[in-house]
């Protein structure tokens, strides 16, 4: 039916009495890159975990390319790539071994070459044979992103993907994501960096205490104006910019 890449309907997630998410509706189309903003603890990570089916015990409905998570789900899994706070890498395997392992799990036909390609794309080719434990934080982050993309997903869910990246790496990521979106992929990423988000996002949503308080296209605003409005929300705590 729908061609939404990701559809979240009335998502509510409680931890005890605290509602981490409170009836959040959001859908993302192919070709969109949505930036999630919000204060610490506003529910950004929880929303990404629900969308990525890391959390399965919640109220509401999540569909990936029209497929409910309730189904077998393998297709939804195959099309999704996840970047979390944790690297999701085996610390005692090398960069290349990690990518090949996950490529095999996702039945990437040319696992070996694909692993080499994404390593090169994120400028890690010279560290391919390094054990992950020995990489710097930024390198691990790049490798985590490479891992999330090694199986050619069509939906990327990324929790603060720019963390620890230096400027050239950040720009590489921006370029990669732009290409990804141009080719019909969908991206949802959380960040605190308005300017960086504007480099790549086509739409922004703002979470406040688990509720969606803003959802707008970034086509007709510039970063400065958006930041002004967003910061107003952040600092005064008053709603809907």
């Amino acid at each position: 039916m729908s061609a939404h890449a990701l559809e979240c309907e009335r998502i509510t997630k409680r931890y005890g009495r605290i509602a981490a998410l409170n009836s959040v509706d959001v859908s993302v189309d192919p070709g969109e890159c949505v930036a999630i903003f919000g204060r610490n603890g506003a529910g950004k990570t929880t929303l990404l975990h629900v969308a990525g089916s890391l959390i399965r015990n919640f109220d509401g409905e999540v569909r990936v390319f029209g497929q409910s998570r309730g189904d077998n789900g393998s297709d939804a899994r195959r099309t999704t790539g996840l970047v979390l706070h944790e690297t999701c890498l085996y610390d005692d395997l090398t960069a290349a071994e990690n990518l090949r392992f996950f490529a095999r799990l996702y039945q990437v036909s040319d696992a070996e070459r694909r692993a080499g390609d994404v390593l090169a794309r994120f400028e890690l080719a010279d560290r391919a044979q390094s054990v992950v434990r020995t990489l710097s934080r930024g390198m691990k982050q790049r490798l985590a992103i490479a891992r999330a993309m090694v199986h050619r997903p069509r939906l990327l869910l990324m929790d603060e993907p720019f963390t620890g990246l230096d400027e050239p790496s950040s720009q590489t990521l921006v370029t990669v994501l732009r290409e990804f979106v141009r080719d019909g992929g969908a991206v949802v990423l959380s960040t605190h960096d308005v300017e960086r988000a504007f480099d790549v996002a086509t739409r922004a949503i703002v979470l406040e205490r688990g509720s969606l308080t803003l959802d707008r296209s970034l086509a007709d605003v510039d970063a400065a104006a958006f930041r002004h409005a967003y910061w107003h929300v952040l600092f005064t705590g008053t709603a809907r910019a």
Partner: protein
Amino acid sequence: MLQTARAVLEKDFRIELRTRDAISAALVFSILVLVVFNFALDVNTPEMRRLAAGFFWVAFAFAGTLALDRSFALEKESGAGRALALAPVDAGGIYLGKCAANAAFLFITQLVALPLFVIFFDVSIQRAGALAASFALGSIAFAAVGTLFSAVAANTRMRGLLLPILFLPLSVPALIASVETTSFALGNAEGPSFWFTLLVVYDVVFLTASVLVFEYVLEES
């Protein structure tokens, strides 16, 4: 499913070759127990030699648990296991891969500790084939139950009470059967066919059941 199992198995072997964590932990433990038994129990009596198989398997029940602990610790480290659980693969394949790796580590540990066991308990191996079968089937039994419950324990925070209630009664038959078959291999027992059959059935039942049920184990919160 087998493809997934192979990928997981190869990964665990690669990590083990690099770190030697699981096997060395298991080995240290089994040596510790054998030494302790030896010093604390005065094992060089005929009765003790009859019980040697029992001591050996108790040592491995422990050593194996340590190896299993490491096996799942490495999936939790840096959240790699999360990514594994989210891959579009049959959960049963993940289970089989982890279980095969764990069984192999246990088996290798047993082979390495065997000479010490022979020396300390002054036993002689009468039937080498039966001993190998006993070790292999016992390792698989232990890995089959242990892999399942380690995953349960890692994903819930209620390891404390759930585990003994479920794990203990389930593992006891396999341990007894392993002891009896090893005893037979050492020439200290007769009539092993019942116990070998029990071990095989146990292995098949637990592997099958775990493969079917593992999907629900991997689901979190």
